[in-house]
């Protein structure tokens, strides 16, 4: 400890301290954001509509109205289908925590069984998109074709590396890493929040399977060029080179022109 305190006025002490701080925060952040790969249960039967109805009255009817017919605080859910419920409740977006620019992802409020019952109830109100079949969610499609479809239809909001991006007035397109394949599929067919609907006439179920395969592939392979800095392109890369790159240049300049002891 004495040796350490003697060196605290060393010219490199500030640099060392800065590096330690950066590594610590970076390390903590990496631990805190470890990918949480949830596997949604997609086998689904309609027998639970009655139980789902009870759950609905207790948890959802305040905003969506009795019989899900809508109210000034929430839209009608007639015809949104089981897929919309599985997505919104399964990712924790519903029940909504507070009114805001958009519903945020948060820890799930209902377990898989209750989610299935709620989906059964909402599906019984009117025809809508169903929970997708398992064969489109296996991630065994054509990743290259999925990449083409992703870049045409999804990349403008979700970023070419699926890292997400900002929209207007506080809304944003979320990052897609760690999102369950079923939830990606359901988001495409139901168009949650401000996302447009990509129905089966626009992108075929096989095309959606390819997109999911592409997302799985880029998530599994990581960034080929090393640290991706959040895949945010020139924003984070520019910030890095301004701070780290120029910092190194300045450090070398100071070293070159300083007097030797």
């Amino acid at each position, binding site marked *: 400890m004495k040796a350490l305190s003697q060196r605290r006025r060393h010219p490199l002490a500030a640099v060392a301290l800065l590096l330690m701080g950066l590594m610590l925060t970076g390390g903590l952040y990496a631990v805190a954001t470890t990918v949480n790969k949830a596997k949604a249960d997609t086998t689904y039967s309609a027998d639970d509509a009655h139980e789902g109805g009870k759950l609905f009255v207790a948890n959802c009817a305040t905003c969506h109205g009795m019989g899900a017919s809508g109210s000034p605080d929430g839209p009608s859910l007639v015809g949104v289908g089981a897929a919309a419920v599985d997505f919104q409740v399964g990712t924790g977006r519903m029940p909504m925590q507070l009114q805001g620019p958009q519903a945020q992802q948060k820890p799930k409020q209902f377990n898989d069984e209750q989610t299935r019952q709620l989906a059964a109830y909402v599906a019984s109100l009117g025809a809508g998109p169903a929970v997708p079949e398992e064969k489109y969610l296996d991630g065994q499609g054509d990743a290259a074709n999925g990449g083409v479809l992703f870049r045409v239809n999804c990349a403008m909001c979700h970023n070419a590396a699926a890292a997400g991006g900002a*929209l207007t007035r506080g809304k944003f397109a979320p990052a897609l890493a760690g999102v369950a394949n079923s939830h990606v599929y359901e988001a495409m067919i139901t168009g949650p929040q401000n996302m447009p609907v990509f129905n089966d006439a626009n992108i075929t179920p096989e095309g959606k399977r390819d997109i999911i395969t592409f997302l799985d592939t880029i998530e599994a392979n990581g960034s080929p060029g*090393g640290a991706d800095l959040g895949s945010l392109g020139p924003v984070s890369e520019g910030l890095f080179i301004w701070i780290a790159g120029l910092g190194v240049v300045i450090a070398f300049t100071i070293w070159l022109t300083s007097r030797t002891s």
Partner: protein
Amino acid sequence: MGDHSDGIPAGSDAVAKAGLHDVEKFQDPGLPPHRLRLADTDPWAAKRAERQVAILFGISVVGTLLFFFGYFFIRLDDTIGTLRIQNMLLGLGTAFAMLGIGTGIVHWARALMPDHEVSEERHELRSEADRVAAEKIVGDIIEETGIKRRPLIRNTLLGAVALAPFPAIVMFRDLGPLPADALRHTMWDKGTRLVRDPTGTPIRASDVTLGSAFHVIPDGLNNLHEGKLEEKAKAVVLLMRLDPSLLNPSKGREDWSYNGIVAYSKICTHVGCPVALYEQQTHHLLCPCHQSTFDLTQECKVIFGPAKRPLPQLPIAVDSEGYLVAQSDFHEPVGPSFWERG
């Protein structure tokens, strides 16, 4: 040379000479006293600095070896992992090889090489004798070439020099031709089907459900052999369906949409980025480059950002088979402003 700028440490005590009585008059303070470094006085410190320089050069050697290790001994298989390791070794090896030599030389110069200050006086910029000599050289050249006496040589030289730049003009002309009216027209025409990007399959009006967004190219674009990207860059369209009651068409545009289905150019009127971020609840279109925001319910009027003009609308209709077709080309040039746009 002044008596205090000879670089000898013992003679540089001019600072102390400046007495308080003549503080009004500016005096050249001279160089600060020369301070000896640790390595100048202590042989052990000099030895240590020598070792440090040697270590830095050694790091350079290790870096070069690392490079060759990465290049020759990392077997590339089909996975991206080995490529990543090899790239990292090549990069780190080169960096250490260069940095080791650079930092070693700098450390050597700073710690061990003599560091006494040296002053150099400025020379007179031009002496009269030099000027006369230079003038004589130029005069001699003119005289010896005989350019004044031989007008034939002078005139042919002038002619040759005047003509020589013309090939450059012809070559730069090949950068053209000017785009003529290419900026004003796209592939869209009466009856051109709207097809999906990238598959090229036609779209039925019934396919476009409420809240949908389709990325659209004109039929036949995929069959072009030449200029496909240029045509695509002008003709791409975003197709969306809103509740028809939300559309507020201006006079003359009432029949440009079909059952709430509208088609707008995807090229931003600011600098031409693809405006494809569609928010289906607010009916806003957002440009990712500079956040220009267009309101679909007001015929894509700019409600935020640097764009100046609304996105051009493509008039659409439905043909006898139920597929969406264009009524005509865009009624105005798509994309950013240009000089002759008017």
